[in-house]
């Protein structure tokens, strides 16, 4: 019963976003190395066991995984043509690079040679194309909606995969960096697709050797991983999310040596001599506002709400202060983050009151705060809203009805929610502010924003104009849309001192370079 929003179920989000950066498409990140060297496991000091108390995936088949959070676990066994760097920008992974055609309707990825899946089958262009086509077209694929813009994936020769697009779209490399682009062995899914949920076959840093649902997953280092020389852990054990009250004890007793802990446990963890890392992530707490129904169809009320919320108090309650107050959908350091926005709706109770007074619903409009987590943020929010005059009640709905009521029927006025981002920034915008976006229950259209997003789509990720265009879209959205962003939800990881520092990736936790003694 955590006060933070649950990550499972409701938020079936694929994590990751794409963004341009100064990196060239040919990708010269320090991490990439020739795949031919991947086979040798003889990197210095490979060994030890990492036990991660984090979460077990809903399914080990990336196209059937129903929770966005799964991407972290899935990234242990799967790799894609691209991956994201620490800041969330696309860099080469299984591919060495990519080339777009002139108008951005076709992109060709060059595959490394000699790659294999963990079942020994070849990872060549044909296999890659088959896997990507499966993600796109399989009737049970939950990632197919992300690949709407792709017309087809084809193999050209043994080392080139070509994605043909329906409209110009330069976001593809970041899109394929996440769950959507994970390559699954065709040999495996052609033989037994349903078995993949329990037995994944990919080309990631580790391979699964044993799995007990809801209990644990055991993995070993996969020497055939393209970047195996950077993987120094021999054994990996994955455990479900530990309970807040016992996670520190679990770390001390050696049940885990790395675990996700809530903000409330940081002090205890430090006292116990554990190392703490607070890693920025794309997850942001947000209030979904339905501005098609009363009282939020009056802009003044929406604005009053934005000024009434004391975000840092909520952050303190929800996460003991770990994280940042947020007024925009992206965290600092991400390409879409717009410095200029600042704190446009800093707490201002007086202003909120006067806005309400000026609204057509008077000084005490009635609002129901919809949530499925009863305690914590909702209670505090209610108190804050009441302080400026809202007649606020809390409406607790069953988790199973959440999607139906909030996203499908959009019957709720104000919903406590969270957004975990998208690999592609544009897709993130669509979910949050698009006319069909589920976090836009009012179904408002923002033509100006759409125009800006189209421009972004048509701008290559590495273009110098990209950041500016994206940030402009951010500013527009923040100004026009009613969504109330609250605070970021970073990953807080506690680790035993036997484990080296973990690399701080924004989107997906990775383990290159990590050693454990």
């Amino acid at each position, binding site marked *: 019963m955590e006060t933070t929003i649950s990550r499972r179920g409701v938020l079936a989000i694929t994590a990751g976003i794409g963004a341009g950066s100064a990196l060239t498409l040919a990708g010269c990140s320090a991490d990439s190395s020739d795949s031919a060297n991947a086979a040798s496991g003889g990197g210095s000091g490979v060994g030890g066991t990492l036990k991660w108390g984090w979460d077990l995936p809903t399914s080990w088949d990336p196209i059937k995984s129903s929770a966005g959070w799964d991407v972290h676990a899935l990234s242990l066994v799967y790799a894609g043509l691209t991956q994201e760097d620490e800041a969330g920008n696309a860099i080469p992974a299984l591919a060495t690079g990519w080339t777009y055609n002139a108008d951005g309707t076709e992109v060709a990825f060059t595959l490394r040679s000699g790659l294999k899946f963990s079942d020994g089958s070849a990872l060549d262009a044909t296999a890659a194309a088959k896997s990507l086509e499966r993600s796109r077209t399989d009737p049970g694929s939950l990632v197919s909606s992300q690949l709407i813009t792709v017309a087809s994936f084809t193999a050209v020769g043994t080392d080139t995969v070509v994605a043909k697009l329906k409209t110009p779209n330069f976001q593809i490399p970041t899109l394929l960096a996440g769950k959507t682009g994970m390559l699954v062995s065709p040999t495996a899914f052609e033989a037994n697709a349903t078995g993949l949920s*329990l037995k994944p076959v990919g080309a990631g840093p580790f391979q699964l050797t044993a799995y*007990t649902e*809801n209990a644990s997953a055991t993995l070993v280092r996969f020497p055939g991983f393209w970047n195996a020389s950077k993987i120094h852990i021999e054994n990996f054990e994955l455990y479900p999310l530990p309970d807040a009250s016992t996670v520190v004890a679990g770390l001390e007793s050696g049940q885990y040596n790395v675990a996700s802990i809530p903000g409330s446990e940081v002090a205890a963890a430090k006292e116990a001599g554990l190392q703490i890392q607070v890693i920025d992530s794309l997850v942001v707490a947000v209030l979904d506002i339905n501005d098609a129904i009363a009282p939020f169809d009056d802009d003044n009320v929406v604005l009053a709400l934005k000024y009434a919320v004391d975000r840092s108090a909520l952050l303190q309650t929800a996460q003991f202060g770990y994280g940042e107050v947020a007024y925009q959908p992206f965290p600092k350091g991400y390409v879409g983050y717009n410095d200029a926005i600042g704190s446009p709706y800093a707490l201002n109770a007086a202003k909120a009151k006067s806005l309400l007074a000026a609204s057509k619903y008077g000084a005490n409009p009635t609002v129901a705060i919809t949530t499925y987590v009863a305690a914590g943020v909702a209670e505090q929010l209610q108190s804050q809203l009441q302080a400026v005059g809202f007649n606020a009640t809390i409406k607790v709905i069953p988790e199973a009805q959440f999607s139906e009521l909030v*996203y499908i029927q959009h019957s709720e006025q104000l919903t406590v929610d969270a957004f975990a981002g998208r690999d592609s920034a544009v897709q993130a915008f669509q979910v949050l502010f698009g006319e069909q976006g589920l976090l836009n229950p009012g179904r408002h259209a923002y033509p100006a924003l759409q125009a800006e997003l189209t421009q972004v789509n048509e701008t290559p990720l590495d273009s110098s104009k990209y950041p500016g265009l994206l940030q402009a879209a951010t500013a527009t959205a923040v100004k026009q849309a009613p969504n109330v962003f609250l605070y970021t939800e970073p990953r807080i990881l506690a680790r035993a001192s036997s484990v080296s520092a973990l690399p701080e990736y924004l989107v997906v936790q990775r383990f290159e370079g990590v050693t454990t003694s």
Partner: protein
Amino acid sequence: MSGFTGALRAAVRLVSVPVTVFLIATFSTYALGALGGANPAATVLGQDATAGQIAQLNHQFGLDKPFLVQYFDWLGHALTGNLGVSYFTSIPVATSIGQAFPVDLSLALLALGLAVVFGGAAGITAALRRGGWFDRAVSAVCSGLATVPPFLVGITLIVLFAVVFRLLPSGGYVPFTQDPGQWLRFAILPSIALSAEGAAAIARQLRTSLVGALQENYVLGAAARGLSVRRTLFRHVLRNAAGPALTVLGVQIPLLIGGAVVAEKMFALPGVAQLALQAGSERDVPVIQGALLVTIGVVLVSNIIVNAVLFRITPQARRGTRSARRRVTLPSVGGAAA
């Protein structure tokens, strides 16, 4: 009537009760769920859902059919052993349950064993030293344990053994078949928590039954024959007086399996109850129904077993007349599982 039709009738009578119970139970939860207005397809798709995809997924799940048809579809499949596939994990329900059930089973057996040993010892000793300080202490402890909110025992154990003294892990599980030693490390705390209530119930019931039985003439008769207290107690009295205590024991079994949801949540045990809870909150229908199937099955089987044992140990004199009253009643909700 002929032997065959007689046997057939008896078989039908024997089976009709569990079957009816099973049908009513599965149907009512199915109905409630179906009328609940949840939309599993939407939940699965989450923030990526488009109307078209939701419709397609719902169609795949069979949720667009009238719910009666859905129920009978499920029933038909279940009878052939096909429990379907989870909406949320795409893992066959039979597999999930097949992995979860042994967890509950092994823990339940350990908890039962602890309950029998400690509850039995306490009850017997209290009966033998009736009126003494031990008897009163046992009474007080039993009453206390009966009123403890189920998870308070668990929390106390966790705080003491896992947090303060760091002796045992606070959660997790290793199957017995994989490593018995490790299994015990993970299983001992939850089993103690689970057994507390059962031990109290058994102790109480056994004490009451024994106090009555110890006043029977045949106990005096045994003493007159020169039999020791130990022999009299274990070979004669317990055999005759254990009936109600056995009933209490029988009631514990289903509570431990599929009912121990709070314990499973607290100790992070991958059992059937928490599978059911999670599925319930997401409306993962195949898993809910599968879990229900298992728990109902356990209840019915344990009833049969306990009734059979009761029949065996009931003095033949009383079999005809009092057997009706001795029959085990199915577990009451009152004994809210830990």
